[in-house]
């Protein structure tokens, strides 16, 4: 029994290290000089330098960061605004044809995005939305909405019926019911959904690279500019990658603390 537990712990650590190792390696490489970054065998001990980070900022990182932040924030808010009422209508007081509606939402994820990119490009062009952050906001909202509705619906389904009935008996109308009773219970679920939307919007590359140019480029597009087919710039690429992933890591870390607290809260006492 005890042996089983120890080996399980060891296995968990092994898997965790395997997953985290590339990230740690990226962090280490970002503090190296280019020459230190290609040595074979790789160097574990070296004199750290901030020169790569300076290089990344010199290449104009901030406008891309602002674009990514803006697109992520607005599209996530839009998803929440649309997905919360939708999930309510599909779980707590199901509308007619709920399963069809859910299936329809999911079907929009079945077409590979690459198959839709040419029409999307032409539509954006006709609407004067090429290289415009609003094109990305619309697409990211549409991209995350089905997933958000499905996720949130499962959280909404867990709200105890008794609680809603009790509120109704007390005379709560729909807005009160939604905002005072249901939302507080599903808050951790909403936070989890929002976090997923943030991550997906932040890391999305395909739409961003195809529909943006100089003005609406996001962080992943900026990051790809460090990949070169002629020349070796791994340290600088690592520094850019670290800077690109930091905001999401920080948000994830903050949200995680709340998610755990929220989940252990318990709805009915």
């Amino acid at each position, binding site marked *: 029994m005890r042996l089983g537990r120890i080996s399980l712990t060891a296995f968990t650590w092994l898997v965790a290290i395997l997953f985290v190792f590339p990230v740690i390696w990226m962090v280490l490489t970002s503090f190296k000089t280019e020459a230190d970054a290609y040595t074979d065998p790789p160097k574990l001990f070296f004199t750290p330098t901030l020169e790569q980070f300076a290089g990344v900022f010199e290449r104009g990182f901030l406008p891309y960061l602002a674009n990514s932040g803006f697109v992520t924030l607005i599209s996530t808010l839009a998803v929440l605004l649309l997905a919360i009422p939708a999930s309510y209508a599909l779980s707590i007081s199901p509308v007619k044809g709920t399963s069809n509606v859910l299936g329809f939402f999911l079907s929009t994820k079945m077409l590979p995005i690459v198959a839709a990119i040419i029409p999307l490009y032409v539509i954006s062009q006709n609407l004067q939305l090429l290289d415009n952050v609003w094109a990305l906001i619309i697409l990211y909202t549409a991209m995350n909405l089905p997933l958000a509705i499905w996720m949130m619906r499962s959280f909404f389904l867990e709200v105890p019926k008794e609680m809603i009935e009790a509120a109704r008996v007390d005379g709560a109308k729909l807005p009160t019911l939604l905002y005072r009773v249901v939302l507080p219970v599903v808050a951790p679920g909403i936070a989890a959904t929002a976090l997923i939307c943030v991550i997906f919007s932040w890391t999305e590359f395909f739409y961003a690279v195809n529909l943006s140019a100089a003005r609406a480029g996001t962080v992943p597009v900026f990051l790809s500019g460090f990949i070169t*087919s002629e020349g070796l710039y791994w340290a600088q690429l690592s520094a850019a990658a670290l800077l690109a992933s930091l905001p999401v890591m920080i948000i994830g870390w903050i949200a995680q603390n709340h998610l755990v607290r929220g989940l252990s809260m318990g709805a009915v006492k």
Partner: protein
Amino acid sequence: MRNAFGRRRRGRLSAILLSALLLATGCAGAGAIGAGGQTLVIAIVANPQMNDAIALSDQFERDHPGIELKFVSLPENQARAKITASTATQGGEFDVVMISNYETPQWADNGWLENLQPYIDSTEGYDADDFIPSIRESLSDDGDMYAVPFYGESSFVAYRKDLFQQAGLTMPQNPTWEQIAGFAEQLDDPANGVAGICLRGKPGWGESLAPFSTVVNTFGARYFDEDWNAQLTSPEFKEAANFYVNLVREHGQTGASSAGFTECGTRYGQGEAAMWYDATVMAGTNEDPASSTVAGKSGYVSAPVNKTDASGWLYTWSLALPKVTENKDAAWEFMRWMTDKQFVQTVGEEFGWNRVPPGVRQSTYEIDEYTEAAKAYAQPTLDGIREANQDNTMTEPVPYPGIQFVGIPEFQDLGTRISQQLSAAIAGQKTVDEALEQAQEYAETVGQAYRETQ
């Protein structure tokens, strides 16, 4: 109940999430462009020389108040896809685009590009006759230039002079592939982690197929005959493919089927290969002590041959002006700046002479500082580019432009499929004959389409 699910907690959670997001977004003033003046948007391939140009672009803006430059810098494949989409649909996102001699003749034919000859002719001191003739021709249609070259390259062999000396070998100035294979066999030293030669095996029409096609050409083979019949199973083609695959399998680097320019560059730079046949721009990386442990130990000789006198490829990244560009005069002003003689001087003085964009202007090879800094490879590079035309590098006539590529739009896809077959043969997953049978089928489909339109 209300306390347990109170507003306070919910409020704090969302406030923290929101503030974290706002913090990440900075001021979130996204999408706005600078007020007043003209903004030029330039799509560029993210290679080292281009990054130097971006770093120097402040100087252009200082000399041209009222013109603001914005660069979109992407890796080769993404840049190519994006620039093609934008130019073909007249999307108009870019005022200046960076394309190669693969796209230029096709796009000029399609009427997507502005004829640059009037701009060149009316710009005093630009000296287009200074461009190396093969480069200039590869960017021209009916004698008019449709793109101006930024840097150019051919292919050649880098070899480790110290290893050759130790083994008592002498590298000739114009080696044959047979000689190269012999050297690779003698210098192959798996015990010390040194491969005889590094050759690309990574799939991609711009990866393994580039060096492979030069071997195909010099072995007297071709992709299509003059009537667009695919020729990938001809005896010459089989001989070339067997030679390439066997050489890299027997004396090449480990993991050959996934090694491209960058991977070979790392290996050669770490002293893990005695020879490397690749783009002439590799010399810049090999001779940079910051990234290479073998700087100063290499010699460079022309691309190996079999039945031809020369076999090096020809490639150039150059700047073109899409027809839909609105600020054409300002755009030309920028293109002139980036491809002028003065730019070469500026890069040399600011960043050092081995970072000068090579292979474009003959006058670059008359600058003393440059010929001194690049003495190991300047002349072989220039010779390689000068000789890189179909007459010198092929034995049979072909219906398409290009040396290491077939200059038709379908080749991006066809070439990548052929190269996947080549990689499979290098990895030992199939025989060379099987790979060529499959590749021949792909090529036959493309050839058929051209036969029908003839």
